[in-house]
């Protein structure tokens, strides 16, 4: 089934990371993982947070809060999880990327 929402490149990265962390990821850990994938480019926590909030609004993610901790200045962590709609969007993005890759493989000679 075609998903309602299409993803931008950065959103794909963030959604993939949230999926990988399997409900155990909050903004800081998600940002760390995204930074590993985007090296040497560094992504800020604020950028990741905004992307997460946007995807929450689109229904691609769900979230829950943990207890506040002193390390975070008494602020609670918010854990994110991919919803069924998010999984669908991720699968669609993967299929599109695979299709593109297959097509480009056919033209490998002309790309090199």
């Amino acid at each position, binding site marked *: 089934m075609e998903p309602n929402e299409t993803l931008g490149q950065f959103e794909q990265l963030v959604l993939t990371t949230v999926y990988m962390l399997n409900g155990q990821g909050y903004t800081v850990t998600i*940002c760390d993982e995204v930074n590993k994938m985007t090296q040497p480019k560094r992504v800020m926590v604020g950028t990741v947070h*905004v992307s997460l909030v946007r995807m929450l609004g689109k229904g691609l993610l*769900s979230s829950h809060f943990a207890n506040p901790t002193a390390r975070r200045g008494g602020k609670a962590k918010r854990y994110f999880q991919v919803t069924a709609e998010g999984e669908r969007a991720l699968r669609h993005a993967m299929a599109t990327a695979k299709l593109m890759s297959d097509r480009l493989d056919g033209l490998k000679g002309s790309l090199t």
Partner: protein
Amino acid sequence: MSAHNPDTNARSIYSWFPLTLRRGFRFVVKKILPRELQHEILGDLEEAYPKLWDFIVACIVSVWEAYRLQTTSTADKLLWSAQLALVLFCFAHGEAPLALMILTVVTLVTLILRDAFTHRPPASEAVPTLPSTAADAVEAVVDPDEGAPRTSLQYYMDSAADTAILAVTVLASQAVTLNLDAPLAMPGSVLFRGAMVFIPVLETIRMVLRPNPYSKEPFKGSKLSALAIYNRVRLLNFIWMVPCYFALEHNHRLVPRIFPLYHPLSNLVPLLTFTLWVRLQQDIDVRDKVVITTLDIDQDKAKVKETPKKAEYLFKGLDKSHPYYPAYVVLEVLFFIQLLFPVSYQLWQWLHSAPGHMDSWSLLFEGVLSMALILSWRFVKRSNQEAARALWDSVKKPAADPVT
């Protein structure tokens, strides 16, 4: 003694300064960040960036990103167009195009930033208020009213703050412009008269067009029966329509005889428009159905037949897929244009200081009346829709015993 050791003193200064700077910066960022995002973002920044310089850079990026997100979420072409039109209406007669441009930009940017600050993102409803002994996590609460403030009190406080901030911004921009280059400033009389109209009308427009916490379900949580809600809404309609009729009857005299036939018909045309608007929503088959209420008919069954008829006398609205929906919207807009045109015309005259306009107190009365009618309209309409729904729901309940 260690207190007099110069190395220790130097160390304490070096550790004290970044900490204070960090606290100060955090305080400023907390005040600037959009209200609903600040708690979470600051927690993440505190954890992710222990070094001062990284923290400052991350804070700046976060403020930028948060406002970018919020501005996109609050983008409302209708609201922005109405605000722009109002600025032009109130200040365009100053014949100072550059001053008008400065004022327009300052006002609109302030309002956009203010919207971004107060907007509640759809997924931010979940509030971390668990005691420490409770479970490690709590499910996010689904947000029913996107963008609206959490409570009615906050909604009114935000509206009051909007007014105060806007007034301060307009005055500050005028003061700065006067100091920098006096000819670029708005003439004093134009600014005074314009602001007198602009600020209250702008707030009315914003309160009508922006989401608010109670607009969707006026009778939410009420234990009233469907019939009691219906009776209250009918009374509400009557209370709303009396001043509305007064305004229509009185206002049509305020417009000069631009068209030969305008005057004699001017108070009839809006009423005709409103009647047509009401009629469009009615299902004639249901409304005109004859109900026989003789003694040999079960009273409950008669009530079931009578109830849908009652709903047809309410402003129950039309579904967007209904073929008459475009006409329904056009007629509603047309009615309010006719209601507001005479007052707007008089305001325009007053703003221009043109001779022949009505006296300021009468104008104030007319203006307040019109604003009150517009402000209350959404509530009246929602109440009607809710009452109609309640009536239909009360019919559905005894559906197990179908009416023959």
